């Protein structure tokens, strides 16, 4: 068992508006997105919330410098739901209790072909656990998929054109 943290890390640097802006195309509805951002940055231990923020911001910078996310193209390549964890006997029958951000599976195709057990297992691993893990994974995978798609477009002889040339910037809204 690891020793307890002597001093809980501070997550005072978190600015939810910046991650909200990053996810504006992945989760277009404002209320849905506010819920997702709260689960990633506002719930759970400070070290998870802070790490989520740092990694998402950095991934967002990579995507921005590569030309921004092509949301339509990513969405077209498929998503799987990120399930909401409730005690099994309380799950509603016939109604999937899932978060409003799905797991974009495009990037996983770099590691395992769609439809293979490995691809499915990877998606399961990424979408399991409490939402400060699973939703953060989904948000990161969204940005990683966007970055990989842009790099692929730049590769010589690329056969996968973008659905559109450039999307809006993920800069935070002006206050």
């Amino acid at each position, binding site marked *: 068992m690891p020793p307890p943290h002597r001093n809980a890390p501070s997550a005072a640097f978190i600015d939810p508006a910046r991650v909200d802006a990053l996810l504006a195309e992945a989760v277009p509805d404002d209320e849905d997105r506010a819920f997702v951002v709260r689960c990633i940055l506002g719930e759970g231990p400070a070290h998870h919330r802070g790490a989520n923020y740092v990694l998402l911001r950095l991934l967002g910078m990579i995507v921005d410098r590569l030309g921004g996310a092509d949301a339509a193209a990513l969405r077209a390549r498929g998503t799987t739901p990120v399930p*909401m964890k409730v005690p099994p006997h309380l799950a509603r029958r016939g*109604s999937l*209790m899932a978060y409003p951000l799905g797991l974009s599976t495009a990037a996983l195709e770099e590691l395992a072909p769609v439809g293979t057990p490995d691809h499915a297992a990877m998606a399961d691993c990424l979408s399991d656990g409490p939402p400060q893990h699973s939703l953060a994974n989904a948000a990161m995978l969204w940005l990683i998929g966007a970055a990989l798609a842009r790099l692929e477009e730049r590769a010589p002889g690329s056969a996968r054109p973008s659905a559109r040339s450039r999307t809006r910037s993920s800069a935070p809204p002006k206050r």
Partner: protein
Amino acid sequence: MSEPAVELPSGLDQAFGAVAGELGQATTAWLFVRAVARCAGDGGVASLAERAGPEYPVLDAVARGWLAGLRKQTLDPLPVLAAIGKANRLVVVGMEATPLDALMERLDPAVKVAMITHSPFPVDWDRVLDNYAGRIERVDLDTFQNWAGGKSALLTFAYGHGDTRTVVPPLWLRACGADVRAQFRALVAWNVLEAPLQLYPRWLVEIDADSFTHFVS
């Protein structure tokens, strides 16, 4: 309080406890304060606060507010509706009849509503929920999470707001743990008192107001 002492019928404090479970403490406090004021004037309201206030701090707050000139409960459900937003399931934690009635009049009929039927006071829940003609379903602490989801909201009532703290029914703490916080998109508190409680919050519990996604005053 400088109002002259007025003799009130005995048992008002017991009566308050008997009614508060089914109507809510703030709703009952307004009912009692208005009735006592009508029958015994401001002196009667002062006596009510002196006698029953220490046991029922919400009654004390409403009575003191009355004596300070606050003669009407101001409740606007519109900001609460905005906080609930596009949620299509709403679970109510705690009971306050006047605000809840006002909310239900305006709430989209497509929104399903449930109440966690638990109270520190004696309550006939069938009688309470019959007032809503089947519109509000009954759930308990063991089952309300099957109302969770990406389009679900939790609503409770708050009793005053200090600098950073507020006071809510203890049931809120039992219901809204770390797991549940990530299962409901909106965690809404509707403040039903104009001023913070001046006495120890018996029957209630203090928490940070910013632990809610929406605090509506």
